[in-house]
């Protein structure tokens, strides 16, 4: 199926999300749409799927102008969409999920057997290996994604729109997933993937549309372009894709973890006798598929887990800090950038200024007067302005609620706040998740600069590129254990990927 967006515009309030877009997606191709957060790529595809209506412009399906008013119209035309967040009913089976909304049988009876047979046939055709009778809750994230694909295929989609499909997958799963996409292309399907990962664009797509600020800034053949060109188009300037850093000058051991074990609230073992050191002036990376103990490791080091759940020793500058709570740990110089900025890192309804003092709000200079009971509005304002200036937080208005910022700016605010401590040890989790390329470059430079100033850094990231580019040493966590320590400069992604999934390098 060929899809064409012709002169599409869409305005949300003051924001022109799509500005006279022209995108042509030829039949039987894999087409990537790239752009930073807020560039308008999801909006464009939601218009094609009938989720939004364009203010002006036409949608052409196989060269005919079509009026797509709602997703049902799009589905009827053969357009399917898989959202970033899966829309599955978790306690129900794969078959039940797939037929939901298009139940086979008469008005009063439900013929699931026939549906299950059809699903098995589809699954075999595209080598999806999905068990039609499995309960969705029991499936891995990668399998759930394939259920979403099946759902669209079951509705006879000829064109599939996938919104950030690889965000939740491990490197191995990404490879498998690309195989599926290629098979779909062989079967004559058209695939559109919305993404911001340039390596994937180059690996899988035939054509690329680059968007910036609501406009199409490039329609390119993938073979004729490069990551550097795509990045420049996306950001509007040259972007350093590689992290530039001098070799680490590691000093004394700052953090020493020995036999650290962590029990989950449900009693299961989340971390099993993990030992490692982090020295001043080096970045130690922790790679691993999410849910293999990284979250618990960082929370334990930051003092956010109850003592009863944590066993083993944590020494900071030679001193056992097992008994110190989160506040005391921050006082001795342990900064923490949490993985979940909305839940942990920020108070979304609080102003930027109030957020800039979270964790140090109770002591000078944030608190002063009446035995440090009163908040010192002036000192808080100055601190906020410093963080905003040094970390280029936009818009630079300390009175705005944190909710009003984009993900990248929220993250810069948090990192800026933690850098203000100033830290001797920085625990930093998923520093660039959901952050624009331009901001990623900025954040990486700041982390390296902090290291060069002699700070010890423990970096946890699900992005292999990031963790290999930034780290001086790399630990791979699998199932709560350190599966291996490798030199990130030498190891290949395949080797790391193997360790991440429990194999041996």
């Amino acid at each position: 199926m060929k899809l064409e967006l012709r002169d599409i515009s869409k305005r949300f309030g003051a924001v022109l999300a799509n500005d006279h877009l022209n995108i042509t997606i030829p039949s039987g191709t894999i087409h990537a749409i790239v752009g930073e957060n807020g560039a308008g790529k999801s909006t464009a595809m939601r218009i094609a799927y009938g989720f939004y209506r364009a203010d002006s412009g036409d949608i052409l399906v196989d060269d005919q102008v079509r009026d797509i008013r709602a997703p049902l119209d799009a589905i009827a035309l053969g357009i399917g969409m898989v959202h970033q967040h899966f829309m599955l009913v978790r306690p129900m089976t794969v078959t039940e999920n797939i037929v939901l909304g298009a139940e086979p049988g008469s008005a009063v009876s439900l013929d699931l057997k026939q549906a299950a047979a059809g699903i098995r046939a589809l699954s075999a055709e595209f080598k999806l290996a999905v068990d039609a009778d499995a309960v969705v809750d029991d499936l891995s994230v990668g399998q759930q994604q394939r259920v979403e694909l099946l759902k669209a295929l079951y509705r006879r989609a000829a064109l599939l729109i996938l919104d950030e499909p690889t965000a939740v997958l491990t490197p191995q799963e990404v490879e498998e997933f690309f195989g599926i996409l290629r098979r779909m292309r062989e079967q004559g399907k058209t695939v559109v993937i919305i993404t911001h990962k340039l390596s994937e664009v180059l690996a899988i797509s035939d054509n690329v549309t680059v968007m910036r600020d609501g406009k199409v800034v490039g329609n390119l053949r993938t073979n004729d372009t490069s990551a550097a060109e795509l990045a420049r188009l996306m950001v509007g300037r040259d972007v350093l894709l590689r992290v530039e850093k001098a070799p680490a000058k590691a000093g004394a051991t700052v953090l020493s973890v020995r036999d650290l074990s962590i029990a989950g609230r449900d009693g299961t073992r989340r971390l099993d006798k993990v030992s490692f050191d982090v020295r001043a002036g080096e970045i130690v990376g922790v790679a691993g598929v999410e849910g293999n103990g990284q979250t618990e490791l960082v929370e334990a080091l930051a003092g956010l887990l109850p003592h009863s759940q944590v066993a083993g020793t944590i020494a900071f500058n030679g001193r056992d800090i097992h008994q110190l709570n989160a506040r005391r740990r921050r006082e001795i110089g342990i900064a923490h950038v949490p993985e979940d900025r909305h839940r942990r890192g920020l108070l979304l309804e609080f102003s930027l200024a109030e957020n800039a003092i979270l964790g140090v709000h109770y002591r000078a200079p944030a608190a002063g007067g009446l035995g440090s009971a009163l908040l010192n509005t002036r000192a808080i304002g100055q601190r906020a302005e410093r963080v905003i200036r040094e970390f280029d937080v936009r818009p630079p208005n300390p009175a705005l609620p944190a909710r009003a910022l984009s993900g990248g700016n929220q993250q810069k605010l948090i990192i800026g706040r933690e850098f203000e401590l100033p830290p001797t040890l920085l625990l930093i989790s998923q520093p660039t998740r959901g952050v624009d390329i331009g901001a990623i470059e900025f954040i990486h430079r700041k982390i390296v600069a902090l290291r060069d100033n002699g700070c010890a850094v423990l970096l946890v990231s699900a992005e292999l590129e990031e963790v290999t580019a930034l780290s001086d040493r790399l630990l791979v966590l699998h199932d709560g254990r350190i599966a291996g320590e490798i030199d990130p400069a030498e190891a290949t992604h395949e080797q790391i990927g193997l360790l991440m999934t429990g194999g041996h390098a």
Partner: protein
Amino acid sequence: MKLFRELLFPAIAVVCAFAVGAIVVLLIGDSPVETFRLLLGSAFSWPDGIGYTLFFATPLIFTGLAVAVALRGGLLNIGAEGQLYVAAFATAWVGITFASLPSLLLVPLCCLAGISAGAGWAAIPGVLKARFGSHEVINTIMLNFIAVALVGYLTQYHYRIPGDPIMETAPIGGAAHIPRLGTFVPGLPARIPLNVAFLLALFACWLVYVLLWKTKWGYEIRATGQSPSAAEYGGVSIRKEIVLTMAISGALAGMVGINEVLGYRYRYYDGFSDNYGFTGIAVALLGRNHPVGVIAAAFLFAVLQRGGVPVDAFTQHVSKDIVLILQALVILFVAAEALFRRGNRGQGALGRI
């Protein structure tokens, strides 16, 4: 602009409530104009109208503040009713037991007793939540029943003057009385029970404002209410905050006893509360959990309460239940507005740094 928006929605809710209320009055068969004239006219007349309206507003300011502080801290205190009963009794008990003390000592002591009793009673569900995770809504409701039964028992069997047919304690010592505002304000007769507790209520509003937005403790309370996990990340002990917030909330509810016992009846009178604790929830919601909003909302509810009597007496068909209808409508529209801005739970933009 922000302030304007904050004021706009509650104002719309009130206007809508009165509009629907007018239809109800019309359906019953009276003139809405006449009814509302009676309602508002009697509440704003000088001196009786205003005097009584402010007197009625006093306990609602305290309970509204109590609920607002708890909500800012992420807790729903449905137990202000029980807290104010226990506190009022404690206030009276000190006033009776230490009646011989000089006024300068006895009045603060009575106040302190009420405040700590309210704080202590509210701290119970706080501790239960912090320690065992049991929900404060359930526990505050249950403690309401216990509080009412407890003070009823104490009044009936221990502190009632033998032979008195009314469920009330012996009077407190004269030294424990606090002056009525009629003593200072020219033209305001001393028979109107509006007393110094009203000024205390206004002072409490200012104090709560400073606490919540100008101190590190308030920062921690609001942070905990906004996102417990972010507050925890910021080194705040969530358990401590829960107990502290409940205690502050209970202390504020407990101050109702000062108005009732020291400034009005000069004894503990069983069943005195006209659902002040529960109306406080509506006051806090309408007032957007902000002290200034609480004053305005408490005043509105007091106007309705005061105006109910003449409406009952001077209209053909409408009874004073119209007041309940209006109150319910206000709450309904405030709740409807909350639905429109989901995710903004309990978070006004007023008073930010």
